[in-house]
């Protein structure tokens, strides 16, 4: 029968299943295909820390949400329109995220008594009265998959492993996306290693697609037109990949070798994985024995003339604290990428949080100021890391670049920059023995010279003990220590002269400024845009440079009657703003391991404005 097409401006789909069901792969495949057709998008992988939790349990459920559309997409969506649930546990844990009237597609074959019990449900949820609020499609995905592979003589375990491709194929059909990209992927990924597996996956993918065509369950197909993004060449990119490319690009532009010292930690490890592939770019990756060795090796590499970098997450940043202080004292360039996760302690390793800001700004013994930069979106991780490297080299200082689990694993279309147009990163090494002093300073930047071992005549010693100004010799002189503490701080403050002024989305003064940083960008932007569309006098200030702040930030804040600071922490940026600018800011703090939702921010904005505007 002929199916009707409906065009949607935007849609949010959530894939959920066992962590062994390949939901992340399914989501990523769907995302890449959607991206290549030119829609704007934002994704949120949501997976458990356990690699393969027992099948069927609620704590083993892995989810992947994609929000895409022909309009500007800033967030992965607070709720979803479509939920693909591969078993009862996936349905039970994800149903709260489905909007009323949304669509559910379930693998009906997985709703066995055993699985229902594993999900801690008393009865089959498909039969629950509440289901009438949704469009429920019960599809025997397991059986249909088995039918497609009936003549291949495969083990039932292998057959079961391919069923995610059935769901993927069906979703391609339903949302009018071609399956070519995934066919190419399957051929490349499995073709050479396991011909049977490749063949099985291809068959099941096509079976899912054709099922949509022939079944009478679906009477309507949907289409999402390309978004009106600025002209240019695009790719889909995850934040961790963007961060890795930012490091590699900065080193290349600076004419330095990149050295990444790193210790595996969720959710930052992909930066290490990505860079370890780039040997032909001269990138050296060093998987150290621990977080401390990782940063110390990077400090050593910077000392020897490479761009030293280290990637980690919160607990790792804590371990690196002493070595960061050493880098502050040595005044060597160093980029520290912190992909924040839920804490404290081990916390929620696979979930997102913005709670390392104060650790980044203050988390070292004594006075150890450094520059802190934060990325706002997955693709922005590139620019934020690149900028961190530029500042680290120019000011001979460690720079902490904050991203988080949502940014690191989330993806969005990225307008690929022209390599030739990336900002230059000039590097000067000291060579003149007549004028060289290890701790003399550039008049403007206050940075000290970078003198590499191997340079004749410049043999000198540096270390963690306090330095005498200019000579760099050990000094216990009280006045010298006071001077050095203050000049190290002044050097970091002067970075404010070298960064862009703070921009505002909306009017530069008014009733309310919503001030954010990091990954809450999309949610705040969506909320503020919606409120402005309703006529509310609200603006959005999103801070990328957290230490030092842009020079105009104080003036901007004073232009608003009220300041709202939404954060995924218990109030960290708000403390820095109150302390520096004495503004009576109000916090909005949700620390659930999830990105902030735009609707809850919108409600908060309206209630803050409501009192006066009502």
């Amino acid at each position, binding site marked *: 029968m002929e199916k009707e097409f409906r065009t949607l401006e935007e849609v949010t789909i959530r894939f959920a299943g066992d962590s062994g069901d390949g939901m992340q792969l399914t989501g990523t495949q769907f995302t890449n295909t959607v*991206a*290549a*057709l030119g829609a704007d998008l934002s994704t949120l992988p949501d997976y458990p820390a356990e690699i393969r939790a027992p099948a069927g349990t609620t704590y083993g459920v892995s989810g992947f949400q994609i929000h895409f559309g022909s309009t500007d997409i800033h967030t992965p969506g607070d709720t979803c329109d479509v939920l693909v649930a591969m078993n009862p546990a996936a349905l039970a844990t994800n149903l709260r995220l489905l909007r009323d009237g949304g669509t559910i597609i379930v693998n009906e074959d997985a709703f066995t008594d055993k699985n229902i019990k594993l999900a801690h449900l008393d009865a089959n949820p498909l039969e629950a009265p509440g289901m009438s609020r949704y469009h429920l499609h019960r599809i025997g995905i397991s059986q249909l998959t088995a039918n497609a592979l009936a003549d291949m003589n495969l083990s039932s375990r292998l057959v079961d492993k391919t069923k995610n491709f059935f769901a993927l194929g069906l979703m391609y059909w339903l949302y009018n996306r071609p399956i070519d*990209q995934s066919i190419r992927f399957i051929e490349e990924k499995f073709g050479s290693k396991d011909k049977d597996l490749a063949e099985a996956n291809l068959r099941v993918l096509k079976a899912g697609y054709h099922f949509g065509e022939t079944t009478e369950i679906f009477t309507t197909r949907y289409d999402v037109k390309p978004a009106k*993004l*600025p*002209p*240019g*060449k*695009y*790719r889909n990119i995850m934040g961790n990949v963007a961060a890795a*490319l930012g490091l*590699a*690009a900065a080193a*290349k*532009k600076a004419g330095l070798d990149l*050295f990444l010292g790193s210790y595996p930690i969720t959710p930052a490890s992909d930066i290490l994985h990505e860079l370890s592939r*780039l*040997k*032909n*770019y*001269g990138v*050296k990756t*060093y998987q*150290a*024995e*621990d977080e*401390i*060795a990782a940063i*110390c*090796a*990077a*400090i*050593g*590499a*910077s*000392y*020897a*003339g*490479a761009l030293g970098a280290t990637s980690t997450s919160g607990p790792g940043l804590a371990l690196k604290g002493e*070595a960061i*202080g*050493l880098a502050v004292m*040595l005044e060597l360039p160093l980029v520290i990428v912190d992909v924040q996760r839920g804490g404290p302690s081990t916390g929620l390793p696979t979930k997102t949080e913005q709670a390392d800001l104060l650790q980044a700004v203050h988390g070292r013994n004594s006075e150890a100021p450094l520059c802190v930069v934060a990325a706002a979106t997955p693709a922005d991780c590139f620019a934020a890391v690149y900028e961190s490297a530029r500042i680290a080299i120019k000011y001979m200082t460690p720079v902490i670049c904050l991203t988080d689990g949502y940014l690191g694993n989330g993806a969005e279309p990225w307008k*690929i920059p022209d*390599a030739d147009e990336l900002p230059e990163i000039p590097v000067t090494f000291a060579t003149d023995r007549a004028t060289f002093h290890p701790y003399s300073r550039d008049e403007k930047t206050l940075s000290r010279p970078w003198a590499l*071992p*191997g*340079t*004749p*005549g*410049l*043999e*000198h*010693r*540096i*270390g*963690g*003990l306090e330095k005498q100004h200019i000579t760099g010799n*050990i000094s216990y002189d009280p006045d010298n220590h006071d001077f050095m503490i203050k000049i190290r701080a002044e050097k970091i403050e002067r970075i404010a002269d070298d960064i862009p002024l703070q921009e505002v989305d909306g009017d530069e003064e008014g009733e309310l400024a919503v001030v954010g940083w990091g990954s809450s960008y999309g949610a705040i932007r969506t909320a503020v845009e919606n409120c402005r569309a309703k006529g509310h006098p609200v603006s959005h200030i999103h801070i990328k440079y957290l230490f030092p702040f842009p020079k105009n930030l104080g003036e901007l804040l004073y232009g608003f009657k009220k300041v709202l600071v939404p954060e995924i922490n218990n109030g960290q940026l708000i403390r820095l703003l109150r302390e520096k600018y004495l503004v009576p800011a109000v916090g909005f703090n949700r620390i659930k391991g999830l990105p902030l939702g735009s609707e809850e921010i919108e409600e908060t904005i309206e209630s803050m404005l409501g009192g006066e505007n009502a």
Partner: protein
Amino acid sequence: MPETKEAAAPEKLTIKDFQSDQDVRWCPGCGDYSVLAQVQRVFPEFTHKKENYVAVSGIGCSSRFPYYMDIYGLHGIHGRATAIASGIKTANPELDVWVATGDGDGLSIGGNHMIHTARRNVNIKILLFNNQIYGLTKGQYSPTSVLGQITRSTPFGVIDYPFVPVSLALGAGATLVARTMDRDPKHLQEMVRRAEQHHGTAFVEIYQNCNVFNDGAFLRFTEKETRDDNVVYLHHGEPLVFGKKKEKGIRLDGFTPTIVNIDGGKYSIDDLLVHDEGDLTLAFILANMIHNPELPRPMGVFVSLNRPTYEDQLAEQIQRARASKGEGDLQALLDGEETWVIR
């Protein structure tokens, strides 16, 4: 693996070239002075350019070493010298990187980095000053302090079983492992030379007297009167002979080293254990001699093995990647695999 060194320095370096202008601040009589002097004496023999030497250290008395050498130096943080040095060497393999560390710095707080550096076989030279005590923090016991030792933090005696640094280094996979003493300058110089000539991680334990907090810990081995009967020097291909008149030797009884007299009795020099620097099993047996107080303490190179270094293998991977994929192009990297154009 053959040594790859740059062309010999044009001017002959002397001991003065390695003495920095900083006042040496170790306690008078400290064994560290001897280690510094022997290193400064031997370095001019080597063929590196002066600017290619780098000394790295952590925290402790021994870790002041870089300040007193007129070469590039980095005085790091407690325990991390080997990690910092590994980064330096990996970033620039042309540099000749030396680590000065102690039993606390290198085996306690820095124990993890020590074993992993050895395992990777980064081509750096580690001088471990072992004085069996914490000096800079004023007299607490260290991981090499002996059982029962009275220190400021063990008024009733040490109850932690000590590390044998040589055994630890062997177990961790260091490719050159040696032991020497501050009071035996010639031997110390020779061990520094051996470390320099080695291509891979060289671990040299130096018995070093702390005359303030643990004076005389190694007297039995260092003093003329007792040294001959308590020390056996290891020489590759030669039998283990010791004693004032070279009248004693070490014979293997199964896997157990035993002392035998070779002055005309049942045994002759032909019955003695012959040292082989290439035999790791033998090295462990020799390292374990420390557990029998009757046996003399072996000094010298326990083992010297050839294994590819970390930085050489990394350079090779980079070279191979460049040969097969070409020098990386930044725009291609940014573009990735799938792109689309919006007009």
